[in-house]
């Protein structure tokens, strides 16, 4: 029985060039020719002479590409080469107007990185997969082609020539799920350091996956070596996968196809295959590789070498935003959050929710007149920031804004709640009011809406409790004689339905019941 062993070669490409409408900080420029990179829907409306290989046009390297590329390589753990060169990779295809692609084959700008996948990234508990990155290189994008019918293909050159970063991994991935997890992780790392314009869903990241299988036992189907890893079966390439699910499904489809082929005595041909959403269980041959195409790599004589100052590399590395893993760890250790809450907080609203949370905690600390630290208030703050505040935004279907409920106001609400000056219900009410635009200060709202919690005395609680107990003699009997403590909750519920419930605090009510029923001292 064949084991699936898919040394997978995902080569996700991240679109680097920043675009004014998506990210105002960076210069709009193409990778090697100065055409705008605004993603328009009008085909062939943003094309420079070099993009369509007009004779006499020359490539001009755009320096704006460099910083995002550096950040991407550093976050993937790569070593940055101080000098790298550009090469031409020759092949004829209608989406490659010059007949060659400018890339960095011999001397890429970054090598030898590592991405580690753990159960945090979707693997099984305790499982760990190390994916080595062979190299990260700058290269040109091809044009976009669209098959009208079997005789006609339409070509849009808008994105042709734009700079891409290609991340080539070694064949260390052995299941479709691991491959998808790897791509997801790479995407989140690139997002974290601002090296992508858009995500996969908008074409900002694409993956080309190489798939091969081999038998678990025996030596057949192990005669190929790719990127220095030997003992592999012959691989085929699936190009341009643009969703995570697609990656998984495509790999499964290709794996199954190769296994079927090998089991029936056939031989896997080196091919380029395609996969589409409409036929998720099969891959389709695009073009043959004919014993691996000879790309006749030639150093490009127009573009000068790319050399980095070592100071620049260390500066970029130092000033990079922390990765999600680092942020989560910080939240857990410093604020005492659970890993689950930390992960959610870190991922919301491009990190703004996290900053808001930190502001709320800082405000809370300044309000307290006794000794507290972040861990004391962290957990309660995160519940409010994530769930109470979060649900207000989501039911309203509005986008996050830190000005709707200023951090100071939220901190004040939480503070009053902790002091037992207001009840939980009142706190939520105040939150709602502020969200809806109430500009009064929290203390004003409390005073004017008469939300102060006037604590009832224990005797009043007991009076009410006795009232309830009288109405529910059966439950009392169950608790006192038969020890069914669960019924206490029922009586609690009844107490909280009492007309004076807004003045009651649930913990106090429970204490009163316990005193009366169980004789507990509180």
């Amino acid at each position, binding site marked *: 029985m064949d084991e699936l062993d898919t040394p997978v070669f995902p080569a996700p490409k991240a679109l680097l060039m920043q675009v004014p409408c998506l990210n105002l900080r960076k210069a709009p420029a193409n990778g090697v020719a100065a055409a705008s990179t605004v993603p328009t829907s009008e085909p062939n409306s943003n094309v420079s002479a070099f993009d*369509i*290989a*007009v*004779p*006499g*046009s*020359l*490539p*001009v*390297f755009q320096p704006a590409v460099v910083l995002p590329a550096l950040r991407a390589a550093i976050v993937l753990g790569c070593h940055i080469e101080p000098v790298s060169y550009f090469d*031409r990779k*020759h092949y*004829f*295809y*209608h989406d490659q*107007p*010059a*007949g*060659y692609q400018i890339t960095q084959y011999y001397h890429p700008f970054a090598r030898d990185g590592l991405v580690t996948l753990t159960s945090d990234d979707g693997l099984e508990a305790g499982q760990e997969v190390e994916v080595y990155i062979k190299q990260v290189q700058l290269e040109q994008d091809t044009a976009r082609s669209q098959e009208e019918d079997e005789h006609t293909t339409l070509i849009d050159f808008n994105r042709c020539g734009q700079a891409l970063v290609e991340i080539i991994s070694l064949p260390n991935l052995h299941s479709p799920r691991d491959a998808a997890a790897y791509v997801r992780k790479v995407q989140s790392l690139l997002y974290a350091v601002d090296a992508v314009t858009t995500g996969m869903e908008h074409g900002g990241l694409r993956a080309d996956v190489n798939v091969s299988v081999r038998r678990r036992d025996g030596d057949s189907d192990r005669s190929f070596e790719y990127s220095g890893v030997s003992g592999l079966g012959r691989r085929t390439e699936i190009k341009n996968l643009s969703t995570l699910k697609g990656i998984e499904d495509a790999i499964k489809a290709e794996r199954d196809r190769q296994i079927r082929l090998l089991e029936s005595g056939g031989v896997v041909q080196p091919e380029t295959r395609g996969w589409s959403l409409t036929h998720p269980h099969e891959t389709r041959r695009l*073009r*043959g590789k004919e014993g691996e195409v*000879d790309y*006749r*790599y*030639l150093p*490009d*004589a*127009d*573009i*000068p070498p790319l050399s980095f100052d070592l100071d620049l590399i260390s500066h970029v590395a130092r000033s990079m935003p922390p990765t999600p893993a680092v942020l989560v760890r910080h939240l857990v250790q410093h604020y005492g959050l659970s890993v689950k809450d930390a992960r959610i907080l870190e991922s919301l609203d491009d990190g703004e929710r996290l900053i808001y949370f930190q502001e709320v905690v800082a405000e809370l600390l300044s309000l307290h007149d006794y000794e507290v630290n972040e861990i004391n208030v962290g957990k309660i703050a995160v519940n409010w920031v994530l769930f109470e505040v979060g649900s207000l935004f989501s039911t309203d279907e509005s986008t996050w804004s830190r000005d709707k409920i200023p951090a100071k106001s939220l901190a004040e609400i939480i503070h009053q709640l902790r002091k037992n000056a207001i009840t939980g219900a009142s706190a939520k009410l105040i939150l709602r009011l502020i969200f809806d635009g109430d500009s009064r200060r929290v203390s004003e709202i409390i005073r004017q809406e008469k939300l102060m919690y006037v604590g009832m005395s224990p005797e009043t609680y007991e009076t009410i409790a006795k009232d309830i107990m009288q109405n529910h003699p059966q439950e009392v009997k169950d608790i006192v004689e038969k020890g069914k403590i669960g019924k206490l909750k029922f009586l609690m519920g009844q107490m909280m339905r009492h007309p004076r419930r807004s003045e009651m605090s649930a913990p106090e009510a429970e204490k009163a019941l316990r005193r009366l029923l169980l004789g507990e001292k509180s």
Partner: protein
Amino acid sequence: MDEFGMGSHSTNSAYGEVFNGLKDGPTGGKALSVGGSSGGSALAVASGLAHVGIGTDTGGSIRLPAAYMSLVGFKPSYGQISRKGVVPYANSLDTVGIVAKTVPDIWLTYGASAHPIIEILQKPDDNDPTCLTFSSRERIKVAMLRRKAAVLGSKWLLVPSNRRPEKNEVLIPRETRRKLQNRFLSQRKWTRRIGVPLEYNIEEMHPLVRWAWTATLSHLEGLGCEIVPISLPSTRHALSSYYILAPAEASSNLAKYDGVRYGARRDEVADDADGTLYSRFRAAHLGPEVKRRILLGTYSLSAGAMDNYFIQAQKIRRMVQRDFDSVFRMPNPLQEDAELNMDGVDFIVVPTAPSPPPRLRHVKTATPLESYVNDVFTVPASLAGLPAISVPGPRHPDHPWQPEVAVGMQVIGQYGDDYDVLHLADNYLTDFHDPNTLSRTQQTKVMS
């Protein structure tokens, strides 16, 4: 011109051959080759249709036509003139060049930093990444100043940089400095050392060419230059290296001609049934010499041949560059720590072509390889990116002048030394003959 600049006689054209000799026509017995690949520009200048001609010199394509047509053909240092708009043949060799009747005409078009005429062609261009930037041009100036200072025994060196002056350097206002530098650089009286490379004295050299060479050297000696024999050992491999490297780059640069976005109209199915793209179209629309060089280049870049051909050719190219650096006095401004070589020469003077212009009917029966040999003297300067100019050589007193005996003499300088190369050509190599003794018909270069 030859299609895509590939050819030495301007005969590889879809529009017909260029030839010198109206009476007979191209197939007549007397028609001469105009040289290539920029033969059309040369002919236009020679026949008075244009004052100045522009072409590209990849392996000698400006200098060879200039020699055959008794004109002046100048190839600047690689990167002096922007290549934007030049249809590329071999990016690392293509150099825009100028052909004209006299050197002053070239000054006018080219411009040089030490010359008062404004720069027209010679200036930085952001659109061409291989065009020398402003700071590179300043570095060239420093190298020239160092050479001049060493030759004239001058103690002061006015450095045109924005660094702080060293201990024995004088700090003066920039404009004053610039004026002094220019005046210093344009000092004409200094003993120029002329190098004569032994390896250029090949067996195939036509006797008239050899005579012209020795006559030129005597002439220069009479004008006060020192003649110095030198050796450039890698010369004999330079031609082979060129014919590996240029076609290799050409096979890459010509891959874009597939008829999809521009070019001749497609009237048939583009792709072959088995999925081969474009080859039928390219076969139909590219000329035979072009196809030959593309195939040659593709082969030498292929995985099996790369190490034996392309890499080796690159190594030879590096050797050719090093040979030149070792004989020149001026340090190569492109090298970080290049030193002045006081035993070096300032210019190398050699013939431009091994023979006078051949008859077209002989050219047509020659094999491509025999055509390539015409480039043997021009290719080394191309490989090293050095400035080179071809001027009409001296006329043999015993042979009445006619276009069939035109011989061109070439001056090659160190990288960046364009100004002084032009200056030598202008002042030392144009007065072989008193122009007053030449009749009007003798002065024209075109056969009637």
